[in-house]
């Protein structure tokens, strides 16, 4: 029986959802393949985290050391590479998160194991793993296989698997000593900073009118503000609008911005990158306006309008004002 490894992601004492999602997928694969699940936890004073994982894996390998207090991709890489060398797991799962994006490629080069990133499913055929992922902003799907190596690394997109428990597990805890000598840190943690603080809290809004790249020019945002005003709604946006400094970061919906849960979310000129959609999963109803009928947003939205936003938005606004008057 071999082990599927899941690298535990946690921050500020809390286990990140991606950890539970990876453990769910690892559990599912393990049941089908008669493998076991090993969670690998690095950190300092992590006993409560270990406790929360105790029924999610068959084995929990813990490196608890002061030098692991903050995430450091190099230390993680060195320690996990050593563990891989020792135990030769067939599959190692890491989150496709800010931290995973730094760790996984380094680990791939260090160990020589192939890597597929940002995957949305894992299949197993004839004892070999294959990963499903998206290209071209979700317009194309791809199945990726791996060269004949002792194992492979897969990073998993957040939010694609359930956070639930799967199977009956009781983790055997294995405490390991910090295995490295002579560390010369190339990077030092300074602090966490809040980059999305502001006057308006879009997470509390009942109605969001959200604008994306399709708006074209900064001055056109007035059109969206007028629609939001007619509806007594709040304006929000996708990343490209913040990147261009047209609206402040605290109005951004998505992975690096806010997760919102309005009754109605109106997405205008937003193509629907998964990073954006990750922030809209709590929305009651999503109505999307986009001129590209193949835009990924229409796969998630409840209602869609395929039209030039500059033509349809003024008509929508007039109709709303008319209805409110009547």
């Amino acid at each position, binding site marked *: 029986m071999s082990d599927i490894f899941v690298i535990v992601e946690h921050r500020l004492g809390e286990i990140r959802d991606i950890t539970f999602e990876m453990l769910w997928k690892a559990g599912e694969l393990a049941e089908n393949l008669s493998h076991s699940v090993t969670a690998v936890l690095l950190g300092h004073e992590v006993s409560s985290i270990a406790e929360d994982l105790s029924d999610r894996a068959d084995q929990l390998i813990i490196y608890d050391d002061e030098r692991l207090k903050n995430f450091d991709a190099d230390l993680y890489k060195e320690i996990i590479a050593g563990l891989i060398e020792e135990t030769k797991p067939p599959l190692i799962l890491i989150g496709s998160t*800010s*931290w995973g*994006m*730094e*760790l*996984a*490629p*380094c680990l*791939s080069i*260090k160990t020589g194991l*192939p*890597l597929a990133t*940002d995957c949305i499913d894992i299949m197993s055929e004839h004892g070999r793993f*294959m990963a499903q992922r998206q290209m*071209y*902003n979700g317009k*194309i*799907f*791809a*199945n*990726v*296989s*791996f060269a004949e190596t002792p194992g492979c690394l897969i990073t998993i997109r*957040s939010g694609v698997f359930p956070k639930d428990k799967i199977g009956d597990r009781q983790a055997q805890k294995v405490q390991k000593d910090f295995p490295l000598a002579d560390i010369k840190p*190339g*990077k030092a*943690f*300074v602090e*966490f900073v809040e*980059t*999305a*603080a502001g006057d308006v809290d879009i997470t509390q809004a009942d*109605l969001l009118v959200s604008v994306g790249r399709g708006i074209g020019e900064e001055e056109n945002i007035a059109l969206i503000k007028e629609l939001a005003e007619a*509806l007594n709604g709040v304006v929000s946006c996708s990343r490209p609008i*913040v*990147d261009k400094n047209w609206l402040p*970061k*605290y109005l*951004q919906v998505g992975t*690096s*911005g806010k997760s919102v849960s309005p009754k109605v979310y109106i997405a205008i000129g937003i*193509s629907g990158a998964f990073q954006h959609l990750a922030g809209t999963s709590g929305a009651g*109803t999503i*109505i999307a306006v986009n001129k*590209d009928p*193949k*835009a990924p947003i*229409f*796969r*998630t*939205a*409840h209602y869609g*309008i395929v039209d030039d936003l500059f*033509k*349809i938005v003024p*008509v*929508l606004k007039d*109709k*709303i004002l008319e*209805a409110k008057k009547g």
Partner: protein
Amino acid sequence: MDIVVCVKRVPLTEEVDLVIDAQKKGVKKDQLAFVLNDWDNYAIEEAILLKEKHDGTVTAITVGNEDDEEVLRRCLAMGADRAIRVEAGDISKFDSFGIVKILSGVVKDLPRDLVFTGVLADDDSYGMIGMMMAEELNLNHSCMVTAIELEDGKVRTTSELEGGLGEVSIVYLPALITIQTGINEPRYVSILGIRKAAKKELKVMDLAELGISDEELAPRAIIEEVYLPPETEGAQMLTGDPDKIAGDFVEILTKKGVME
């Protein structure tokens, strides 16, 4: 301050119907327009801003065929001092690992305090080139960076985490940094600017010159098949003339209780 920036030419695919190629390994590209990858545009701008403030050089590198030189010309027009293209034909035969071998083969012989790549490329979205290179070249690193300040022998970076959180770090030079969009406002490049930059150095190297063999470039992650997204129920489309659409729209909003 010598800065090397790795860039990629990618197709524009928004509002385009993509067609799968006959081998089902990629998409047909002959009808697509190409641009400098958005993340790389921010990366080259950041390098030029640092150079303008602290002096030094900016070198832009890409791997590909002659068509890919177009993005290097753009980098030169923005203010890069020189550019290098590694002639490698159609790069879709390589995986990220192969591209990293090639880029590292060039970068290892260049003076560099900083190496920049974009966080990811808009086409295949693997997002692994930068950190793989950091490991391959044994460089310190910082990932998904939205702010850089140069200090003596080190840089202070802010990395983007989830949920509006940033992580500030000190990274000792030489270092590789992956640049996130929004870090700056990339400058406009005119046709005239590109023409003027034509006299800047654009060196072409080949794999033999770098001493890289085909075996070293054998892909480890292999695309078996690409396909269109599986059909989902999708959105219920509001159709008809604009007035009818707007009427249906208001009806939905009323039903959902947000037309107060």
